């Protein structure tokens, strides 16, 4: 599973950091950094984080490109 965050939208509310600290982290005061490829054991947390983001800035999904099913 891949994630991308629309950092124009992100307000650094950090709900995602709280819910999936291995995938999202605050770097400095309000810079969000995320791990684009989510490890298998973190997917459920990442999905929950995406659902909880107050500005819906997080997109999760399968890798885009050929070989979709």
């Amino acid at each position: 599973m891949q994630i991308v965050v629309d950092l124009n939208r992100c307000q650094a509310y950090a709900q995602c950091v709280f819910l999936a600290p291995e995938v999202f982290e605050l770097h400095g005061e309000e810079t969000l950094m995320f791990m684009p490829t989510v490890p298998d054991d973190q997917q459920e947390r990442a999905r929950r984080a995406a659902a909880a983001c107050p500005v819906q800035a997080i997109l999760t999904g399968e890798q885009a490109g050929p070989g979709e099913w």
Partner: protein
Amino acid sequence: MSGEPWDGRIVIVGASLAGLRAAETLRDEGFTGPLTLVGEEPEPPYDRPPLSKQVLLGKARAEEIGLPRRRKVDARWKLGVRADGIDPVEKRVLLADGELLPFDRLLIATGTRARPWPNPAEARLDGVLTLRTSEDAARLVERLDAGPRRVLVIGAGFTGSEIASACRERGLEVTVVERGPAPLVGALGGALGAFAATVQRAHGVDLRCGVTVTSLTGRDGRFTGAEFSDGSRMDADVAVVALGAVRNTEWLAGSGLAAGPRGLACDAGCRAFTMYGIVTDDVFVAGDVARFPHPLFEYQMLALEHWGNAVAQAEVAARNMVTTGPRRRPHLTVPVFWSSQFGLNIKSVGVPTFSDQVVIAQGSLRERRLVAVYGYRGRITAAVTVNQAKWLEHYQFLIETAAPFPPTTGAANGIAPAAPVPSDVPDPQLLSHGPTVALTGHLPDRRLTLVPPGPVPSAIPRP
């Protein structure tokens, strides 16, 4: 054509952020016809902003930054293949592998590439790199991992500054050389440029402004150092050339489209112009390669190298490709972007270079937390926040409603805002870095060339 969904063949050239989001939107809009995406890079679509951030910091690997899809697109993907030209009469794209791809509608989303070091022999030295692709990033990370004694960054735009920030965070010595008066000055003007210079120096960057690199030196094919216009020289193990971007329009040379070094011109509905300034109805443009008119900026053609613009413009272009007449939409989004460097979250809304004055409306340079508001002839045209992102939406509203400049309210800290000062946006010609927001005039293309009468020019030799 009435309420029926449009059907025909669609080809998208450029399979990165804009190409992908356009493909998804086409399907969302009900397009069921054949769809082909052509991309020169072998990788499926990936996200570029992490290349100069998470990837350089070692928090994500360059091979692991793929973009998630929003939905299945049921397309044919031709990756690792370049498009070499368009035959506008027969409506075909010519691919480097010889295939001729017929289309009814075409989307051009070929983006930009890193501007190379102008001296090819020096550019080939082992240790001289650029940063645009995941491959570039993998190479740079390998060099940084090897613990170079010093990294030289040429150009202090956003990419160069982010690279310098990552180097410092990794404890590496870094020198940044910029021909202009300050880092980021091309996009943000004088006041924030001076601020960026202070921040870089406080983080231990050896920043040299008003200086150019005159030559890169090497030994046995390996980069060893550089000579500067002020007569000094320096040893370094790695040089990163961050001189801005070049638009990928050369492949359109024989297409008859208004494509040039500043991008491919289109109307507010993302329809490409021909070189005669006539709008086409079957060729569309989106993302970093596009130049489009914006009503908030006196209908000047804007060329934006921003993630958010690639997404928004791709969505509008895709929708307009499969609808007609009054159901088509304009691409009027107010430009926005972010950058993170030296622990600061820098965000922008509007076009800071479209300004004559700037005022620090909230916070201060000293606190490293501020809102700079830009005005042009008495109205607000842009705002840039540093660690104050929550204010962006407020200023976006002021920009959209052409609110008067200087802003009257907003000083939440109760302190009257400072007096506006000239915004000091330099001529981009005088900078090492290219501004990522460029106003490019009103004409579809200044470089009109006369074509002799006869068949329409075509990149594809016909038998």
